[in-house]
């Protein structure tokens, strides 16, 4: 139930696992409307994240420390569009999570900061068929859940579910940002790889919180 530094580590390890498992699936999606490297990029990044996590001499003191490690590692190993976007998301999130534990408002703040980082870097609006289309409904759902009195794990679960729906909802969209935009009309009918990986990663945040509860 507690969204604390142990949760953060579990989230990151879960994210790595899901990124490895979906490596081929992400490549396949990116091959349709991009250049086929999204799965490889994220797998390379999270391999490095795990390595740095395992190499730590002292356990991270707070959530922000974990997220900062993820941010700098992804920034320096992922490359492509996803590297700076995810990197900035984690970096911004790290800035508002310098605590041992988050309450529901803290979880919302973390997700809001992540989305803000993506938008600041990538300048995409909702509906442009990017990872913003997973993060925007996720933040909205988190805000609503917290307002309705949900616990931190419930807030994360709501965010994950909305992100997943948002990712699927990118299918009919025409891409106007990122590499898929070069395809014009031909980008319609395919799910955005970055929105897909975002939903999977947010799903792991909820799983990690639920797992701690169970």
């Amino acid at each position: 139930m507690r969204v604390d530094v142990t949760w953060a580590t579990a989230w990151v390890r879960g994210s790595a696992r899901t990124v490895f498992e979906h490596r081929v699936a992400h490549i396949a999606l990116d091959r349709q409307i991009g250049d086929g490297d999204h799965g490889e990029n994220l797998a390379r990044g999270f391999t490095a994240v795990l390595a740095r996590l395992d190499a730590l001499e002292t356990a991270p003191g707070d959530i922000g420390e974990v997220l900062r490690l993820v941010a700098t590692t992804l920034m320096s190993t992922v490359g492509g569009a996803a590297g700076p976007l995810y990197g900035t998301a984690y970096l911004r999130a790290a800035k508002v999570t310098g605590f041992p534990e988050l309450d529901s408002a803290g979880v919302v703040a973390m997700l809001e900061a992540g989305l803000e980082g993506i938008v600041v870097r990538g300048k995409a609006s909702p509906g442009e068929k990017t990872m913003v289309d997973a993060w925007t409904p996720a933040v909205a759902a988190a805000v609503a859940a917290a307002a309705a009195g949900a616990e931190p794990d419930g807030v994360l679960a709501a965010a994950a579910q909305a992100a997943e729906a948002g990712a699927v909802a990118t299918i009919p969209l025409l891409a106007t940002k990122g590499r898929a935009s070069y395809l014009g009309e031909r980008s319609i009918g395919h799910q955005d790889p970055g929105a897909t990986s975002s939903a999977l990663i947010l799903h792991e945040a909820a799983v990690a919180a639920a797992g701690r509860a169970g």
Partner: protein
Amino acid sequence: MKKLINDPQTVVSESVEGFGLAHADVVAVHLDPTFVARAGGAVPGKVGLVSGGGSGHEPLHAGFVGVGMLDAAVPGPVFTSPTPDQIAPAFAAADGGAGVLAIVKNYTGDVLNFETAAELAEADGITVRTVTVNDDVAVEDSLYTAGRRGVAGTVAVEKIAGAAAERGDDLDAVVAVAERVIANVRTMGVALTACWVPHAGKPSFDLPEDEIEIGIGIHGEPGRRRIPLASADEITELLLTPVADDLGLTGGEKVLLLVNGMGGTPASELYVVYRQARRLLEARGVEVTRSLVGNYVTSLEMQGASVTVLRLDDELTALWDAPVHTAALRW
């Protein structure tokens, strides 16, 4: 798809290492983080030129490091932008105290990573200015996209800006020359086959034996539209016309004509394309005063070509003609 590689994970580093060994007279390769610098280091007082991007476009960019062109190149993984922690040291290696010009092809990944690297370098006191190459006219309505892509025209930007830096222009002047090239260069490409990214195990797109992709980029992505296979002359016209139209060539201009191979097309076919592109330009009253034909900005082993036209003036011509000594371009 068979490849002459050992391992998809190591192909870039091994290739760059081999490149460094083969061209030790021109370049010095740094392996961790990976970037390629001019042999002998930064030239004091000269504006440093840095470019980079995903690998798989060889000889771009490392093949253009050397006297009269780039001071450093930063190769990312195949078709994936390099990261700021590679780019920032390349900026530092290229800086001779007169600032650095970053030549970035317009892809979200390249733009974002170079932007972050520039922030890091600026924090270390290095002045970085950036130009973004966006010569691909296949992306027609750039209002609804991330803007036009940067493709083969990059060679002209790097060569000409490199010559300006070499003759001693300051950073503002080098930026201005680069921007002038960018404003006057346009490209359009065709793919006859897809390419195979080493780790993907699949072609970058599926293309039947009797169809081709018009308006491709250089990352193995599909093009703007698919048409039945046509003759070289017909295909060349489909490439040249939007290029010449977009440049507004009406006759009397002097241009550089670059016919660029995507990697897997024989030189003989590139010259067939060149012949027709030249005839079409001449039919418009445009004079081709400089030419380049070959594999310069590639997509691995993709079969196909792109046609690039750069509108020249006397200064751009002189800078194009200025001596260059790199692995892939030398005169």
